[in-house]
């Protein structure tokens, strides 16, 4: 029955340029868009799980500052609430199996039409499969353990397959993120 949905709550931490705080407080978060986002177009938060969400948000903000050229960061704490039938939880084997089921289905259908992801330019990305799952299965939040290159890893060009953080990817922030956010930390880069 459609009425047996449960509301699931998460606490997310978002590290960003301090100059973005006012806009976020007034207008809520904006989804990050483009091809390079790991698990699709969404607002990305660090949360409890692998390591500490606040520490990861701080590390991320400081790492990002070198590319985006800002000198002060802020960590914003947000309450996220979403129905349990709109969550893809990649920390769980069920979630991984659903993702892999859908990916296999997609690749099979593409082969039937003799299509393949362009190897050099538009490479295959998990983000595109997740974007498609959002459309066909009503997914709005993806939770996952991932490896993220923080400061020293970026400088040393280290890449690992062992997750070092847990994050939330939240679509439709206006529906899913409480606009009454809290600034938990500010500082210099």
């Amino acid at each position: 029955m459609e009425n047996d949905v449960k509301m699931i709550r998460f606490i997310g931490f978002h590290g960003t340029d301090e100059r973005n705080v006012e806009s976020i407080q007034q207008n809520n978060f904006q989804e990050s868009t483009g091809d390079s986002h790991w698990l699709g177009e969404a607002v990305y938060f660090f949360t409890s799980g692998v390591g500490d969400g606040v520490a990861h948000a701080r590390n991320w903000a400081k790492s990002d500052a070198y590319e985006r050229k800002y000198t002060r960061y802020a960590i914003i704490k947000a309450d996220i609430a979403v129905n349990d039938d709109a969550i893809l939880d990649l920390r769980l084997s069920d979630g991984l199996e659903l993702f892999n089921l859908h990916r296999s289905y997609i690749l099979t259908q593409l082969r039937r039409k003799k299509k393949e992801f362009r190897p050099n330019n538009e490479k295959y990305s998990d983000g595109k499969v997740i974007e498609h799952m959002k459309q066909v299965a009503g997914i709005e939040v993806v939770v996952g353990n991932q490896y993220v290159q923080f400061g020293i890893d970026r400088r040393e060009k280290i890449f690992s397959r062992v997750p070092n953080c847990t994050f939330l990817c939240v679509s439709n922030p206006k529906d899913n993120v409480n606009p009454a956010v809290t600034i938990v930390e500010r500082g210099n880069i």
Partner: protein
Amino acid sequence: MNTEKIKKRLEEYYRTATPEQVVAEFEALGVVFDEVPQINMIEFSLGGTSGMVFNNDYKTWSDDFLVGLSESTVGVGLPAPPKNPPTQPSTQFAMAA
């Protein structure tokens, strides 16, 4: 996570969607696809060894590995590839679905 509900939605989609629809939906997400090249596969049987010819490359199975036939494989009991490819009709074969 409500696995059953999400799985039900996906299965409903798999039941009704066509390959053309899937391609169009991914293209609407900004994905640009390449065409898969056609591969000609011909089966052959040679000196007790059977296998496949992919684009004039002779390959046979040996201990679960796909081995290419060449002059060097003659020493391990496999035949040398013939100079001319087999003449039976080719089988148009797209990579495994």
